[in-house]
């Protein structure tokens, strides 16, 4: 065709076709989404520390393995209570003159999604130990160690944050492991990652592809025979470890623990639902309100408790879901400031 034997018309046609499609499928929707979405009214802006932490997150390329998006499919329910929406990302603006916006949605989930990590794992002590070497707390992890965010010091200042590291992970270094500012910023950023509740009255988008919950499914909270061991791995093991021994100087053992062995389960339910700071003086970290944060039901809490009460040589009275439900209602009232 004569039309295409002219290089000007040929390449101009191809260029214009591509440009029009680009505007239609990329530029126009991008501008529209950029301008028509605002952060949710009750969204908390990142603190200064968290902003610096986000920069570390970007610098270290964490997005290569961690997503920050809860898709609107049922299987993503474990990562958040509702699907992520455009407003969740609206607060992400251009980083600086050199660097682009970082929504950090990610495309690979080699590691867990982090949309709600601040709620799921709020403990600073845990994050610092985990960052120093993830295998200290999660034996099977393949995450890199971020040792360079820490210093080993003989002389510890009062302001220094000491990180609990077992000797075998020190690789011959002596002294206390101190978190650098960068490490603390990064943890502050991780702690800030929490899903914002939709304003009252806004219907939450649905999770699609719901699968029928079979009665013996571990996802079905009303299943009376929940697998406590699996729930323990998901919610507790990262700190208290598979052998129930905890981590010396950071997370207390459950094996032989007075509270776990106590035949009156009230305190144990209280700790699971409201968190615990009772042993900070002994060097143990503050425990988060794991049960409340993860919306655990009485059934699930009972399964976890019974697993803890009967494992690693522990042998105490089992609890029933109704008993736990009663206590949960009770400690809920107790936790509310009067």
């Amino acid at each position, binding site marked *: 065709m004569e039309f295409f034997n002219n290089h000007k018309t040929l390449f101009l046609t191809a260029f214009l076709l591509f440009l029009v499609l680009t505007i239609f499928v990329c530029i126009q*929707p991008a501008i529209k989404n950029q301008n028509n979405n605002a952060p949710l009214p009750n969204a908390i802006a990142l603190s200064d520390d968290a902003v610096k932490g986000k920069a570390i997150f970007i*610098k*270290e390329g964490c*997005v290569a393995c961690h997503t920050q998006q809860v898709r609107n499919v049922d299987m993503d329910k474990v990562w958040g209570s509702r699907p992520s929406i455009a407003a969740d990302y609206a*607060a992400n603006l251009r980083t600086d003159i050199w660097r682009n916006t970082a929504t950090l949605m990610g*495309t690979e989930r080699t590691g867990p999604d982090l949309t709600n990590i601040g709620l799921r794992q709020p403990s600073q002590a845990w994050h610092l130990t985990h960052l120093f070497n993830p295998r200290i707390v999660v034996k099977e992890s393949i995450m890199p160690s971020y040792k360079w965010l820490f210093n080993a010091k003989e002389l510890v200042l009062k302001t220094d944050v000491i990180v609990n590291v077992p000797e075998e992970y020190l690789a011959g270094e002596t002294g206390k492991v101190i978190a650098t500012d960068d490490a603390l910023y990064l943890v502050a950023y991780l702690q800030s990652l929490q899903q914002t509740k939709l304003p009252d009255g806004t219907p939450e988008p649905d999770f699609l592809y719901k699968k029928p919950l079979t009665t013996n499914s571990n996802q079905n909270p009303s299943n009376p025979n929940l697998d406590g061991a699996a729930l323990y791995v998901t919610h507790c093991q990262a700190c208290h470890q598979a052998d129930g021994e905890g981590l010396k100087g950071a997370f207390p053992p459950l094996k032989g623990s007075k509270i776990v062995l106590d035949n009156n389960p009230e305190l144990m339910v209280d700790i699971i639902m409201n968190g615990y700071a009772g042993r900070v003086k002994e060097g143990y970290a503050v425990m988060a309100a794991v049960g409340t944060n993860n919306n655990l039901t009485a059934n699930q809490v009972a399964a976890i408790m019974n697993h803890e009460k009967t494992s690693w040589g522990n042998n105490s009275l089992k609890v029933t879901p109704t008993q736990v439900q009663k206590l949960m209602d009770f400690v809920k009232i107790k936790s509310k400031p009067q």
Partner: protein
Amino acid sequence: MENLTRLKKLSLTIILGTGFKASLYAQTVANTKSNIGTWLILCLLTAIVLLTLIVAYRLSIKTNEVRKTARKAENDTENNRFKKYLNTLDSKQIETFLKIKNNKPKNVFSYKSIKSICILFLITFLSTINNNLVFAQPTTTPASLLSEWGIIITIVLIFIPVFAGIIFMLVKITSFFKKYQKLQDTHEAKQFAEYLNNPLDAEVETTLLKRKKALDYTLTHNELAGNLTADDDKGLLQQVNTHASLPFVSLKKKALGRYAVEPDLAKLILWFIGTATFWLVLGTSVGEYLGIKFVAPDVDHVSWLSFGRLRPVHTNMVFWGWASLGMLGLGHYVVPKVGNTPLASLKMGWYTLYFVNASVIFGTISLMAGINNGGGEYREYIWPIALLLAIGLVLTLINFIKTIANRTTKEIYISNWYIVAATIFAIVITLVAYLPFWQNGLGETIVQGYYMHQGVGMWFMMFTLGIVYYFLPQQLNKPIYSYSLGILAFWAQIIFYTLIGTHHFVFSAIPWWLQTIAIVGSTGMLIPVAAGSTNFILTFKGAWYKVPSSYTLPFFLVGIIFYFTGSLQGTAEAFKSTNLIWHFTDFTVAHSHIAMYGIICFFIWAGIYAVVPRLTGKEAPQVTVGAHFWLALIGLLFYSVPLMYGSTLKGLMWVEGEKPFIESVVFMAPYWLWRAIGGSLMWLSHLFFAYNFYKMLSGSNVNNVNEMAIQNLNKFYASADTTL
């Protein structure tokens, strides 16, 4: 004969009878209870029924054969038959016959076929009894007992002799028919011998003698060549192998000598390809190291070498360093060549080389230092560094368009459509990705989806296709199958590929309509992919014989196969149902390697092996080219297949949602190990490739010795001139 037909009918009835009984029994069992025992017995029964059916089938075929031959024998007159035999005698047989015709051998044939028939009856009878016994037993067994392992084992044990019996019967029937056939043949032979011997017919003898002469005729082997010694006075014989030995690998054709490329352009192209090779080896060493980190996360604790920083180093280095520079090098050869005009500006070519290389060098250092653009895949280089790349692309575009404007051909060959369009699109994509006006909030993600896929599809894929449209017909020495299909693929690629970016974010917060368009566009990719790959494969038509004797064509072929499978895999991945399972898993990694490695790299290698010998006049050792090819191909399969398999199971595990996340990490460990193994093979193949490139640059071969001899002579004469 009568006996035989009856026998056949009888055995058929017996066999079918048992089969029917068996199936009846199977039904009752299936109705009573379904457990392992019943299933086992059902399987066994089905096996027996199948076996007996096979026996019956064989029996009927055999009897038919026998009947046919018998009928034939009856219908044919003796004379006719024997004349046929006469014609089939070979020379040696005729000779023997003529020698011994005076002797009268007497052969007595006798065989008692009764014996075998008796055996057959006995076997069938026994097997029926056996069957009856067996079936009698389990029907009296209460169904509940079938769940007992002891009972099951016993039943299995009982079935064994039944099987053995049926098989024995099969063997016996076969041998019976063989014997029967033999009997017939011997009989026939006897008659034929008598026919030959009896009348001592002169006619027969002359026929045979004539036949023998005809059979003994051989050619003198110089009917066409004559008796003169060979002299290739037209220079038709090339590439004569004077020291033939047992080849360890098959010998491929050498590259044909073509008219020389201007040395300045050759130098530029070699520099492009040389730096590309360097980045390939370095970039895949980084990739290999990353693969190892999946298996051994504590292999180092150096910040500059940590996974998160090295991953973009790997991807960007092989994208911009290896693939882009390699493509640009080949492009600088193709664009002027198909326009039949010199390259517009060598200087611009050199600047492109500098800019792109500088971008990769600075980009790599900055990424390792932790300076990146914000985590969007493949645009991790910050804009000042990406700008260098973009300048290189703009220079290339100007250079190419100027060259095409100077072309001496009327048409613009399709290669140049693809190559120039790819360069234009790459510039557009880079601008869209780096301009800040639409990057806030979700805008960034929409741009990211667009950018990362257009980079692959509109830059790498289109440019490479342009290269293939030139080199494939050239290596096959025939025109492309259909120019129009190429044009169709060109426009369809632009229309559909541009739409599909968002399929990387299906189910995300991006608007549904955009996701839907992406999925539809991914399906539309069937058109350009089918058009392109059909076009290439059909270009091979009538020239397939060239593949085994060429060392470049296998690279093209693998590239074409992966172009089809890899692209359609992308389509399959874009659907919502598959997204549920595969999204976020290593399946994407496997897919991107199939695409970028299986398609792009193989095409670039094919182009390099085709073009560099032409530029330098030297070829790589074929053994190491072969090693490169096979290691790369096998390595890619070891890399991608286990990853796809493992990540599918991992995805299903996530969908099921019963197990803690960490278990899916533990689960992938063996597949990651396979990935590391496959990656190592790929990496090894790149060392071979680098060696091959070195050999093509500076290797010595026979041609060179000739060249040097001529040069020496030249020098000698020159010096003789001066001394005189």
